[in-house]
């Protein structure tokens, strides 16, 4: 067994709210190996974001343990082991798009010329070249989302934690970015944890798909992908792909209340 980059053992997390506790995560076990691309899928409110936040040391589990890169999540965060894309764009309203993207680079102490080059490169990647000088509220919802993706890609973290990064994007851009992300992953051998609501997206991107279910939030299924590492877009029409997608859909449906 290869070394686990992320290892969760019997993870529990309960929120205390004004009307009683909410079990966001219960008994979650998972290992993510170096170079894995793991997607998380599950009904809204099942704890995907919460789990990702535990990996990022943004939430403290109320039970169990989690390690990242073999050390505690906190140490991993402090060594800047990962880049995180939040579910909402969360750009700073007082900074232009360009300066929003350069912010983590400034914080990590990259030099000026390097910052400029990286910002230009990632904005190009998400198709926002030319919007560098705009303020966030001058951008459409999808453009803001892309800016926030660019921000997480601008520095070279070995681990990427992405919470529905492509939710607000149309199919064509999404396909494009899916391809780009796969290329990046293939080239750099990053480890990626990826939350999505789209079954085809999960299947297309991942080496493993984790299906979760709510109340309490837990893992109900882990599906290994048999697809090759190199994936052209039209792999999505192969029977193998459809077969995996079907299994994911079944797993997902099991976690839902309605029959439909």
């Amino acid at each position, binding site marked *: 067994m290869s070394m686990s980059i992320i290892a969760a053992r019997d993870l529990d997390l309960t929120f205390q709210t004004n009307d009683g506790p909410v079990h966001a995560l219960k008994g979650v076990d998972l290992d993510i190996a170096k170079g894995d691309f793991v997607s998380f899928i599950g009904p809204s409110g099942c704890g995907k974001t919460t789990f990702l936040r535990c990996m990022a040391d*943004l939430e403290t589990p109320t039970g169990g343990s989690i390690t990242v890169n073999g050390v505690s999540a906190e140490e991993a965060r402090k060594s800047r082991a990962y880049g995180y894309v939040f579910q909402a764009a969360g750009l*700073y309203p007082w900074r232009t798009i360009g300066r929003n993207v350069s912010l983590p680079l400034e914080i990590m102490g990259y030099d000026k010329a390097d910052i400029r080059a990286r910002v230009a490169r990632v904005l190009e990647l998400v198709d926002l070249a030319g919007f560098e000088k705009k303020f966030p509220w001058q951008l459409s919802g999808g453009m803001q989302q892309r800016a926030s993706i660019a921000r997480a890609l601008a520095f070279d973290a070995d681990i990427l934690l992405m919470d529905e990064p492509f939710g607000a994007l149309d199919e064509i851009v999404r396909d494009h970015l899916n391809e780009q992300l796969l290329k990046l992953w293939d080239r750099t051998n990053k480890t990626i944890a990826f939350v999505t609501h789209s079954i085809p997206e999960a299947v297309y991107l991942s080496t493993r798909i984790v299906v979760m279910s709510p109340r309490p939030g837990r893992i109900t299924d882990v599906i290994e992908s048999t697809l090759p590492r190199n994936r052209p877009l039209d792999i999505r029409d192969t029977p193998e792909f459809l077969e995996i997608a079907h299994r994911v859909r079944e797993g997902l449906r099991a976690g839902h209340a309605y029959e439909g």
Partner: protein
Amino acid sequence: MTRNALPILTIVAAIFVLWYAAAVWLNAAWAYDRAGRAGVELSYTEMVADTWAQDKPKLPAPHQVAVELWETTVEKNITSKRSLIYHSWITLSATLLGFAMGTALGIALAVGIVYNRVMDMSVMPWVIASQTIPILAIAPMIIVVLNAVGISGLLPKALISMYLSFFPVVVGMVKGLRSPGVMQLDQMKTWNASSGQTFWTLRLPSSMPYLFTSMKVAMAASLVGAIVGELPTGAVAGLGARLLAGSYYGQTIQIWSALLMAAALAAVLVSGIGLIQRIVLKRMGMA
């Protein structure tokens, strides 16, 4: 600017009308009182004319104040002790120094409170308590003590200004520095930003609306502090000394002109902060 002219003029005109009316109302009693003692019968117009031209009226009419202002600003050499400009300058210098120190102290305390748990838990109640000490009561002692250790002149006055002005800044900045949302703070955490970095790139920018609002209040407070501070230094010069001397001799016209001068000073200073606020917020894309 021209857009604002009409509303301001309207309001100012309204105030003048009210003011003249109030002058009649407040000063009439004295007019009748004096006429009665002199045994003359006053007609209504005579009474009105009298109320607008008394020597020591309860409320001087606007033109009386205007004339006094004109005589003590334009017609006096600005180095003369009878020039309001001279006195304003004395007060202004203490105000500005006190404001600068107060703002700096306020921000420093707010940063301490937001970042340091010990300070968070211990300082705030005492900062509040400090503000409930009636400064006018201890100002003389402060001045005496400072004098004893050899500090005199501008600094004691500025210290009293500071004492009054740091409080609004602390209160506003503690709120402002804590106003970033959970997600924005989390983002900083994911980059393992140092507290300094989080401060400069997130907390400080988010606190800007609070900072400027507090600074406006602090500026007004600082002016009050400078004026209060002038009294126990012997009230020798400055707008506070003018106010005091005026009220000691019942010179209402002189009180009002010093008062209006102080208010004008405050208005200029406060709108100066407003201007900076607009420029800064605009550059931050927030206006």
